[in-house]
């Protein structure tokens, strides 16, 4: 079993230290996924690299449209990847933070959330998508893409739950998946 940084709460329960957790991912789901043709995203991501208007250093586009329920189309960056991710056949904008960040878990979560929402805004404003593409900012998943820092266990849930609730006020937060999966919560507006 993995051993992340564990501490004991006042009631004696064990939990991870949230501030040791890095690589926070945020996925914002699409309102009408059938409205999006993933092929249209490929040239947009190439243009984003050319124009360099995201804060990360962007490198390349990876196209996995041929894989059902797969990672979709990715914009590979140095510090983070952005993608129109189709895991579980649920299409959404995924921000996958690869580089570590200073600060607290709250700051890291906030950074990932803002980056994801900013990318959603930009995509919605693309000429080809204007008025068609709509992200549901009330339906998100938050992942931690590191099984050692935050395995999908009760200890991770206990360590991160309060942090997530403090950030997503007015949202219901539910732990997802099985032990082999990444730590993941579904976040939906109440």
């Amino acid at each position: 079993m993995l051993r992340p940084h564990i501490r004991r709460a006042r009631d004696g329960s064990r939990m991870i230290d949230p501030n040791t957790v890095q690589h926070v991912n945020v996925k914002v789901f699409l309102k009408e996924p059938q409205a999006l043709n993933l092929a249209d995203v490929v040239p947009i991501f190439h243009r984003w690299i050319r124009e360099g208007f995201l804060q990360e250093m962007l490198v390349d586009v990876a196209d996995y449209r041929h894989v059902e329920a797969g990672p979709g189309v990715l914009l590979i960056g140095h510090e983070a990847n952005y993608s129109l991710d189709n895991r579980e056949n649920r299409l959404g904008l995924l921000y996958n933070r690869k580089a570590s960040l200073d600060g607290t878990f709250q700051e890291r979560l906030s950074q990932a959330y803002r980056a994801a929402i900013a990318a959603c805004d930009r995509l919605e404003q693309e000429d080809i998508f204007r008025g068609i593409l709509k992200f549901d900012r009330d339906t998100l998943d938050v992942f931690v893409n590191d099984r050692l820092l935050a395995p999908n266990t009760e200890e991770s849930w206990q360590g991160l739950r309060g942090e997530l609730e403090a950030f997503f006020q007015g949202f219901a937060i539910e732990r997802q998946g099985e032990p082999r999966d990444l730590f993941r919560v579904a976040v939906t507006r109440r």
Partner: protein
Amino acid sequence: MKASNAQWKGQLGSQIPNQLGAELDVFEHEIALKQQGKIEDRVFAETRLRRGAYGQRYDNGQRADGKATRTLNYPSTNTKGPGTLWDAPGMQRIKIPFGGLNASRLEMLADLCEEYSDGIAHVTTRQDFQLHYIHIEDTPTIMRRLASVGITTREACGNSVRNVTACPIAGVCREQSFDVTPYARAIAYFMLGHPDAQAFGRKFKIAFSGCKENACGLVRLHDFGAIAVTRKTGGETRRGFELWVGGGLGPVPQQAKLYDEFVPEEEILPVAQAIGRVFAQLGEKKNRNTARLKFLVSKLGIVEFKRLVQAEREILQHDPRWTAYLKDIPTSAELPLKSPALLQIEPVFPHGFERWRATNVYTQLQPGYATVTIALPLGDITASQLRLVADLSRRYVRETIRSTVEQNLVLRWVSEADLPALFTDLERGHLASPVAGTVVDVASCPGTDTCKLGIASSRGLAGELRVRLAEKGAELDESIRGLRIKISGCFNSCGQHHVADLGFYGVSRNKNGYTVPHFQVVLGGEWTNNAGAYGLAIGAVPSKRIPETVDRITGRYVAERAPSETFQAFIKRIGKTECKKMIEEFTAVPRHDEDPSFYSDWGDPREFTLGDIGVGECAGEVIAPIDFELVACEREVFEAQLKLESGDIPQAAAMAYESMLHGALALLRVKHLPVESGADNIVEGFRKHFFDTELFFDPFVRGKFAQDLFKAHENAGQPRTLETTHQLIEEAQLFIEACFSCYARISAAPVMAPA
């Protein structure tokens, strides 16, 4: 890059075998030293390559974005090899000897592709796995985690013994002489890190096949290919191998030569070791283009090569590992999880089951059991699919999973009665595509998606062909359903296009002042008989017209084939001239303003470039004559092929050589250089202005193609065999390709200069 890297070592502790753990500590130390500037680039590059950590496209920090070549500003200016930036993402190759997997290995691959890569694990044409977009600083952790489930990445790349491949149905095959698995496993671990396999000038590939006729092992395209055979002596049946050596694909494909009709089983490891010693001692070291074993075998001749190997074998010190594994063979065979049971005829099978069963299920040698192929699109599988396969391998079989050279997975020992339930479970994970071994199951190398050497988008084309062929589904004529399509992004042949019915490899052409992605069409390769024959190129077609080309060729086959005539036989019968005619109408490229789509590649909307070459303003002025001349050269090569087919070896050789001279002359004319007539003058002029100046140098193989011209010139007029003429024609083809590329560079040069 991962914040947890420092903690994994302690976390995994004793799960990593000591020796491997120590090696990985050393590797991690070398990474630290490189960061401190204490290891030379070249040394570090070979170090990481021997651990399977490859470079990836754009790792020199330059990327053409469709308008211009721009610098990628990675945070660190440090390098991890010559011209390879530290922070640039790379590829991690993971060796899976004979494709042997189990559930925990799949689960580990799932975790790694999710945490360090892009969510996809990729099965290669050598039964390896590859992860892309990996940061070099994450590689020691990835390797430790793999080691914890018994996988090493050691010698996955570099000048070493690469992954040992074997038939994925070895042991359950109805045609096999015997199960080659234990031998493939034994040789893989015996040669791994063996002192006699450390001083090669180039990679060394080993394959095992259970029979001669079928394709799975593809032994004849390997440096060392062993086919299982038995021999009766004195009432006793002995196991051994028909051994083939010196095969290989790449720019100059060569069929392996028969080394021995019967190498007894106890001799297979020592003979491999002796061959390794001869290769290490006598193989080329300086020029990597002629460093594969095939060149040494050709140079020495098989008789002399064998004499040297036998001499080496005689002086080898006995090693108990040569035979230690043999005593375990009778008890080491895989076991099924369930009892054998025939498929019950049910009133209603799940929808799609019967179609899937027809293509993806192989009835095993052992009654009541089947091997199921999980066809992966372009060899790609997601983390959750890997976990699903792991679960199913525990539920239905005893974790008997293998990867295949056709970039798929197989589950062996499925009780036939379980097939409908397994189908339903696979379908839930989008893993029940009924295309295994069919024309839809197109194989491809990474090409321009991630490979540094790719010229055209092999994966883009493969994806497009898959979609189009799958859409035709039931409409596809039975006769073409079983054809194989294989695509490489360049002449290096990683997609194994030479042994496909329809093979393609990426090239470029200058058209209308632009560089346009093309694919050479290669017809007549043979997948059966262990890759029994290689196809020959018949002409280049723009990428965007390859699907129509495929339709035309297959359509003609359907319409005109004689009853039970194979595709190879059909191609042979109609002849190459007719084949070329078939594709001719697809070779035209519309003007850029008429149809700009021709000027970008499949799946990539950027305007196509070769490296950093842009559109030359003056290109139009020089295009017409050179284009004309180079196309004429291509035709000459083609005619040389025809001569060879008709058995006229001297004429075929002369024409191939002439085509090279004409290509060289065309380039000299582009530079407006005065050349006196005569072969000596052309060759000397070419040497002075294109070779000595390195203007003709390919970024990857450097001066190889020019040296082929010099060699052809030296040997002009001398008697040739069928094989050396075939090779000369291949070299001429590639020389002409190199002339096209060189011309593209020359014509683009004015744009690159400051205004």
